[in-house]
């Protein structure tokens, strides 16, 4: 492996990892080791799973240069469907989860189809589906909290594998699979090619419409997984589930190094970035600061990350143009 190249391509991920490690160490030190107790560690890791998966749900749409505003609403509806099916219709857990997962996937597919057919940007289409889904979510759970489903589900959510919460393991496995999808499979590469340069992709025989459809559908599936994680780790499902997902879903991939313009994914970066955001959350709790500090910090970090990467892109472009002149 060429190390210089490795550092060049992975600069964002490496620096994020360092930030994460240093931040974590600082928090451990200032808390007098409280963070390392089994209980706090468990809490830290459990609530890391959802940010990771919704970050990836947004990331796959960013890969084609679009966005999915409906991430939260899709997750909310999907979780609500699962909860209602189990509580009111007494469906077996696996079936309820499967139906919920499939409905999120189907909504993603509808988003993709609408984007391809209308040729409009994903932004406005998903704004529309988001509104509709919020309506469905309210209709499904009303103002109640649905929690009368079999006890075995929260048990499943609390399981540990080798000291790691099972749901975090699910998130990790999903990330690894997604990473393989984008780095190794032909379909994954084609989706990225569409995001990188759609004219070149078309001339190389890639169907851009298919790529767009796949990206949105995949986004739906990932939201479905996030919903499964949510329902198995929370005490109940109400209408506020998913309400705070949208901004978080953008934060992780953008801090993690995914370009808004499309053509890139950074699975590892997204995962670490979600971890860093989670650290901010922990720090807040530790110093008993107001919850609003978190969104303030994350908002500022997102903005500076994007500005920085744009600045870097432009300066490297200038360097390339310089080469042309020197011919």
């Amino acid at each position, binding site marked *: 492996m060429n190390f210089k190249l490795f550092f060049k391509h992975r600069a964002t991920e490496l620096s994020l990892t360092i930030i994460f490690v240093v931040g974590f160490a600082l928090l451990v030190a200032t808390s007098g080791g409280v963070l390392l107790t089994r209980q706090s560690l468990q809490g830290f890791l459990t609530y890391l799973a959802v940010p990771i998966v919704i970050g990836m749900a947004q990331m796959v749409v960013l890969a084609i240069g679009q966005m999915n505003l409906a991430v939260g609403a899709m997750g909310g509806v999907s979780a609500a469907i699962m909860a209602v099916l189990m509580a009111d219709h007494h469906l077996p857990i696996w079936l309820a989860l499967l139906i919920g997962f499939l409905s999120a996937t189907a909504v993603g597919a509808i988003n993709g189809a609408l984007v391809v057919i209308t040729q409009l940007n994903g932004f406005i289409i998903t704004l529309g589906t988001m509104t509709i889904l919020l309506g469905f979510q309210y209709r499904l759970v009303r103002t109640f909290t649905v929690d009368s489903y079999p006890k075995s589900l929260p048990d499943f959510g609390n399981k540990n594998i080798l000291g790691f919460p099972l749901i975090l393991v699910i998130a990790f496995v999903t990330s690894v699979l997604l990473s393989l999808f984008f780095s190794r499979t032909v379909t994954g590469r084609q989706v*990225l090619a569409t995001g990188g*340069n759609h004219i070149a992709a078309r001339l*190389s*025989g890639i169907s851009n419409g298919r790529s767009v459809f796949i990206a949105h559908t995949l986004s739906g599936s990932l939201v479905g997984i996030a919903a499964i994680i949510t329902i198995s780790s929370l005490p109940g499902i109400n209408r506020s589930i998913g309400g705070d997902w949208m901004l978080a879903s953008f934060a992780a991939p953008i801090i993690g190094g995914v370009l808004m313009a499309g*053509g890139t994914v950074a699975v590892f970066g997204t995962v670490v970035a979600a971890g860093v955001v989670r650290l901010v959350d922990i720090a807040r709790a530790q110093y008993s600061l107001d919850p609003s500090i978190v969104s303030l910090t994350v908002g500022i970090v997102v903005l500076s990350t994007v500005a920085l990467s744009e600045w870097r892109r432009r300066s490297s472009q200038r360097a390339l143009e310089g080469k042309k002149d020197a011919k």
Partner: protein
Amino acid sequence: MSTELRVEKVSKSFPGVNALNEVNLTLKGGSVHALLGENGAGKSTLIKIITGVYRADSGSLKTNGEEKFFESPVEATHAGIAVVHQERNLIPEFSIEENITLHNPPTRLGIVDQSERTRMAKEALQTLGFEIDLQERVKNLSVAQMQLVEIAKALVTHAKIILLDEPTASITNAETVKLFKVIKNLKDSGSAILFVSHKLEEVYEICDTVTVLRDGESILQSQPLENYKQSEVVDAMVGRHLTDRKVELREVNRNVMPVLELVDVQTALGHEKISFSLYPGEILGMYGLVGAGRSELARSVLGLHKITSGEVKLNGQVVHIKTLRDALHIHHIGYVTENRKEEGLFLTFPVRKNISITVLSRILQKLGIISFQKEDAISSKYVERLGIKVVDNNQLAGTLSGGNQQKVSVAKWLAAETNILIIDEPTVGVDVRTKASFHELIIELANTGLSIILISSDLPEMITIADRILVMRDYELVDNIHNIKDYPTISRAVMTAIHPV
């Protein structure tokens, strides 16, 4: 059976222009075929039709005896045709090896076979004698390196028919030598190669047969190149006709202060030692190949790119133009862009608002309110003067034909009543009649005292209307020709300046 590609009577028109008219061309295995022609003669269009990017209106295409137009670039690839397009067609975030194998990545069960991919890419680059880290991302490459990756992308398909659209435009001489070796090897192994280039010396070095396109027609059809002298090929490219137009020599008084003068100007884009003067009422032509730096020079003068040294003088005064707003409102210089859809028109605006955009400051009432009456008067005046075909002034610009759109983008600059007008490629994509009326208009404007810089890649047009012709090559001025409007003499002079033998 040996490889053969036969194009017969292929025609193609775009709205407002006939790009190809019954063009014939035959490519044979074991030979290199030159496709020549001026800018806009239809070379790239022909290549795009062969490779299934565009669909032909009529005619036929025979590949190895099978008669069929390709519906998509993929079909063409499958039929064994590889192409290096003029535009960059690479995915910036992908590695070199992945770009090279993008058409048909090696796979196992839907998974990309990376070691096979590396092997394929390495092999293709080795035949080009080009060494580079295959994992480097394309976005970090220089233009020349990207061009080589494009060529490798064509080689890796092992196609028997290879179309190269200006492959040497941005690579160094040493790289060109290597490329030519590869082309010779391919030829010896029985491939059919189509080679498009503006550099005639290269064409003579490597090609066996030649087709020349002019205004969308094949003037020379698949002839052996050795039968023609370089000058004869040039004549075929530029044509000797245009007797239908009355050509008049104009008197320009050059004993007065020039309205615009550049002295040893150097720009951030790479122009060097550019000096010329533009006199009142003069039409100063600027000729050169695509990429010679003409539009870029014009834009630098207008303040869009930085001038790093030298002087720009307006009526004898040294000026520093910082923004286009200053160029227009303080210095009275206008610029009619070549990309009218992208840069010249507001498609969501009616014709009226398109024309008045440069003169808003003149049609204001109190409080910055626009006087619709004056706006109407001005736009009507220029709609009439240019003969723009509209239902009324409120028709949306987006619904006009190509020629009329071009006229609208010129109209706003006429309305601005500038002292100097830089016109970039005024007649690309317009039909013959509109073209003639444009030429008359430009001459008429100059007769009223307007000084004009005309950037055009259309040599007959240049010789018909310019008073002097500056020839530009590689961001430098290489000649300044007094246009005596005698076609053979001037075209030869221009061609010699561009292609020094």
